[in-house]
């Protein structure tokens, strides 16, 4: 379980996380929604120690990841996989090398074994005959899929998805969501998805947390949040311009 308690984070005068509390249940898909610029990506980066809070506590399976040594943090990170907003594939490597990199560095598998596992992971995300392509030869959707193959390759216990479908067309979006759902059913990992995809995200997430003004405004099952009567949550889900959220 990932547990965040009273987390504060500011960048200069701008407060992004303001005493945030959140518990991510094990083995389930939890979506984090909220208006743009509210700090959803900052929040997810705190969960894996890419950013450190100004104050507050973050625990992964009971172990704090705040202010600990890099070696200890890396031990905890072994539990994680992460799909970045822009996939963050290594641009000096081709698709095969990108996916194989962790296996080469962290396991003692033979070249043949690595090849079999990488090709199988790529096939699982619907990619065939692309292993020799470089990242700039791939479409946005293909990059996300390669990123997903890389993230699930070592069967991590927790996978973080930072806006996995932003900038993709509706069909690819649905395909990526379906892929996340199927991969989750297959491997049973804990998933945290930062997303703007309303209402699609309610179909794949079991829990939804609404981030607003640096705090989790509401946390509950997908149905609870979908049917929320809270004016901010209601306005955000409906996409209405009238309400407490003033964007313009």
């Amino acid at each position, binding site marked *: 379980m990932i547990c965040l308690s009273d987390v504060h984070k500011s960048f200069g005068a701008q407060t992004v996380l303001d005493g945030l509390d959140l518990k991510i249940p094990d083995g389930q898909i939890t979506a984090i929604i909220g208006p743009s610029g509210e700090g959803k990506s900052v929040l997810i980066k705190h969960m894996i120690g*890419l950013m450190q809070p100004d104050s507050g506590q973050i625990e992964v399976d009971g172990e704090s990841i705040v202010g600990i040594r890099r070696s200890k943090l890396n031990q905890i990170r072994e539990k994680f996989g992460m799909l970045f907003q822009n996939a963050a594939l290594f641009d000096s490597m081709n698709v095969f090398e990108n996916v194989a990199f962790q296996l080469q*560095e962290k396991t003692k598998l033979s070249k043949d074994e690595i090849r079999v596992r990488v090709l199988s992971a790529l096939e699982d995300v619907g990619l065939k005959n692309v292993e020799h392509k470089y990242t700039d030869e791939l479409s946005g959707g293909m990059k996300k899929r390669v990123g997903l193959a890389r993230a699930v390759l070592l069967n991590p216990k927790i996978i973080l998805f930072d806006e996995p479908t932003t900038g993709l067309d509706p069909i690819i979006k649905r395909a990526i969501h379906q892929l996340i759902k199927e991969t989750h059913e297959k491997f049973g990992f804990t998933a945290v998805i930062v997303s703007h995809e309303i209402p699609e995200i309610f179909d794949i997430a079991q829990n939804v947390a609404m981030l607003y003004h640096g705090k989790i405004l509401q946390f509950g099952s997908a149905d609870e949040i979908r049917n929320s009567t809270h004016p901010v949550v209601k306005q955000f889900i409906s996409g209405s311009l009238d309400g407490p959220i003033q964007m313009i």
Partner: protein
Amino acid sequence: MVQALGHTTVSFVRELGRLGWFLVYSFYMVFRSPCSLLYILKQIKFIGAKSLFVIFLTAAFTGMVLGLQGYYTLTKFGSEGMLGTAVALSLIRELGPVLTALMVTGRAGSAITAEIGIMRISEQIDALETMALDPFKYLITPKLIAAMIALPLLCAIFDVVGIYGGWLVGVKLLGVNPGAYFYEMEKAVVWRDVSSGIAKSFSFGIIIAWIGCYKGYFAGHGAEGVSKATTESVVLTSVLVLVWDYFLTSVLL
């Protein structure tokens, strides 16, 4: 105003601390978690082999201009036979290491910053971290080791090409006795001159990789951030090379 001065001072001290930590941690990682030989060789190729052309060109013309200037000065004292010594000592002790470092800074140092900076803004470095892999092992230490190996080698090449540049102008164009050019050089240049040049270029290699990697690693946001980091990297490295050269020369002289 006092507040602004205090803020600037604190920021400067913090930056210095971060720079120092970066270098110490880079060396710590060299020994704690050795990187693959393949990564080092790739970097030697990039920093060293691919700088050969510019080093040849710069060295040849530096030697040639030294030949011209040296001849002009030495003829005033009737000592044009010492031209080889003047060219060789200038190159081996000073110009070889410094100009090699400045050329490599312009060609490879800026590219190192841009490469790491782009990896930073495109979250590739974050991706390495989330895989529980230390980015220093893959991005920083291979470049540091490669620069420490490549710079002395490039400097040696610079010296040799420069000496022959001086020979071309002094001996072939201006008529200095060829025997005197090399004989006086052999007599005057001692191992200490050569070793001080090697020591300098070795330490310049550290500076180039250190600042180049540091500026890229902490590059700001977007293309503008990378562009700013690259400029700062070249300027800071060049200044540090010249400042460090003065201190090293005062110790090694």
